[in-house]
């Protein structure tokens, strides 16, 4: 899926220069189907092609543009863009919340059953000795800090947590959302009762109404969030001004 073409640049440079081009199939991100199989979703908005299963048994998953993080029953997997597992470690059974940094590399994993935070140290996971009072709803990394959306009563708090446990509240949102996706920029997406709310990093919000309750959200890539309903899934394309929802094929529950 990768081809090379050559361009000649003659405008900017005083002399013509050889430029290189690459062609490949456009990738939307990854999705986890009802059987726990992680697949690449190819194409672009309104033209999706579901790829072959890269791995199975996923109970939680999230993807950036470059990597995938998958929690199976007993393991935490790191996959590259092609879906190849490049790192695996044992992890307590149960679901996890997974986060990336702004380059799309793995950053944090929160294991629900042990309430443990793992930090990616470049070649493996290390335990982060920070205790969270409440289980986060979504996490990401901002520099060396952990960004976490945490529920306190009827509000969600966006916290920035340092490795020494010091934390700062970056934002506070009245919301009943149980599902969220958080990006390193501080932007996040919430699944409300029958709507999806996009909170941009600059504080602007966009509400997209949906007809049925949302039962899950997960990051497919830096631009796409999978919105999961009982009978189908949609892809939320995060855009600067106007985010959009599209049906995703082949992901029935």
């Amino acid at each position, binding site marked *: 899926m990768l081809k090379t*073409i050559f*361009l000649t*640049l003659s405008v*900017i440079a005083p002399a013509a220069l050889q430029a290189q*081009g*690459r*062609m490949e199939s*456009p990738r939307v991100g990854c999705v986890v189907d009802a059987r726990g199989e992680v697949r690449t979703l190819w194409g672009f908005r309104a033209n999706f092609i579901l790829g072959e299963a890269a791995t199975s048994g996923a109970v939680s998953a999230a993807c950036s543009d470059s990597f995938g993080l998958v929690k199976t029953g007993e393991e935490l997997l790191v996959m590259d863009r092609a879906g190849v597992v490049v790192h695996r470690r044992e992890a307590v059974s149960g679901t996890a919340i997974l986060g990336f940094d702004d380059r799309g590399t793995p950053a944090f994993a929160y294991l629900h059953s042990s309430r443990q935070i793992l930090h990616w140290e470049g070649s493996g996971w290390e335990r982060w000795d920070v205790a969270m009072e409440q289980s986060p709803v979504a996490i990401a990394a901002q520099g060396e800090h952990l960004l976490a959306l945490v529920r306190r009563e009827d509000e969600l708090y966006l916290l920035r947590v340092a490795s020494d446990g010091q934390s700062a509240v970056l934002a506070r949102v009245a919301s009943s959302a149980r599902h969220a996706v958080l990006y390193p920029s501080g932007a996040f997406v919430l699944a409300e009762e029958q709507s999806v709310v996009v909170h941009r990093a600059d504080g602007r919000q966009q509400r997209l109404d949906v007809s049925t309750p949302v039962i899950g959200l997960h990051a497919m890539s830096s631009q796409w969030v999978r919105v999961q309903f009982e009978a189908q899934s949609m892809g939320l394309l995060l855009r600067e001004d106007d985010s959009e929802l599209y049906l*995703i094929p082949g992901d029935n529950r």
Partner: protein
Amino acid sequence: MRLLACCLPSNTRKTELPSAEVTRVFLAYLVARTALFALLWASLAPAQITISTVDSRGMETPADGLVDAGSVAAGDYSDTRFRLRNAGAAATALTALRVAGTGFTILGNPPLPYTMVPGANVDFRVRFQPAAFGAYSAPLLVNDKTLLIRGVSPQAITLLVERDGKLETAATTAPMVLGRVERGASLTQGFQLRNDTLGALTINRAVVAGEGFSGPSGIVAPLRVDPGRSIPFEVRFTPARNGIFQGSLTLEDRIFTLEAVGFDPPFPDAIITVDPVVASGKQAKVSLRLASAPRVAGSATLRLEFRSEISTALDDPAVVFLPNGSRSTPVSIREGDANLGEVAFQTGTTAGEIRFRLEMPAQVGAPLTAATTVSRAVVGMDTTKAMRATGSVQVEIIGFDNTRTASRLTLRFFDRAGNPLGGDPVRAEVAVAFQNYYRDTSAGGTFLLRALMPVVGDASQLSSVEVEMENSSGTSRSRASF
């Protein structure tokens, strides 16, 4: 002739013999053959055959002289099972087996003559089926033995069933098929009670039973029927569901089995509505409805088929229904609701035709079809990004070519004032690169093109880039800011 051939010396068919010799040999053959037949005939003595009746439990009772076929109402029948046995030590031939007499027929009898080896049985039945009341008898001939079979048909009401304007005598021995009717509708079956006897008869019990069956209408028991009189009545069948139904009509102690079929009403004609032309790279909808409200619920199947116009791209995996990602999807039909809803589908990124076919349950004619055309189009650019880096710029295009004929890429750069940067734009002949890419990809007509260009000079002067792509359908443009 077979016997002659086998018994003649083999050479007699090959060697010329004197005519006197031929005559002698032939006479000897005739004598031998006659003796053989006489011997065989003597061994097939009819006296070796015994006759029994066999009851429903398989018990044999020797039959001699008179056999009682019982009492049978007119129109009904009873079968008496007989068994012949060769009780001798030699084979014997069954050469005669017949029954003669009104109301009696023989069933299951072997073709005659029939050779019975010692100990062999031959079973057959004699059916007694009186057409009217009275006493009946008939001789049963077995080789040289004759039995008398007798039966009686009591004085009783005859039940007649109407069939195509004619009356037929009804029997309890087989179900009466009333016919087929749509669920919720009714059919009516006409009957007559007829008294063919010489005295008045009374029906004390006339009952119709069974799901969907009702009646009898037109008569009420007890009911007196005078000699020679006929009284009509009806039985109604109104199925509340589809299926095969069995009921009964009881007249006195005779139980007639009724049978009828209820079926779901046919679905009204369906109408598929889809735009005649759709663009590539879209999620569109096909709407389905029925010409009128269906009287029954059901399920149909909508299928799609993609026919590519592009010789180098036979299919496009993105052309599927949503959300199931398949090329067939179930469609629910709700009773009373003509609207079957809409089904979303992806148009893909290959020029061609998408055909839809709706397969209805219990469809009589061909499935309903409709089609939409994905027209050839210029290269579609969904996303164009321009990025600056130290010493280079990168332009990234996500798009599709539904003709697979992309041939030229042109990039025009603009400064912050919106003026084109001097000189000619960057042009690249990309036909071969695209063809090579499409040869290997399984992502339809989609592509992601990243062009990385070294920059000499101050790249911060660059403000935007206009991307121009050509294919066989024309030129498309897109613009991105750095």
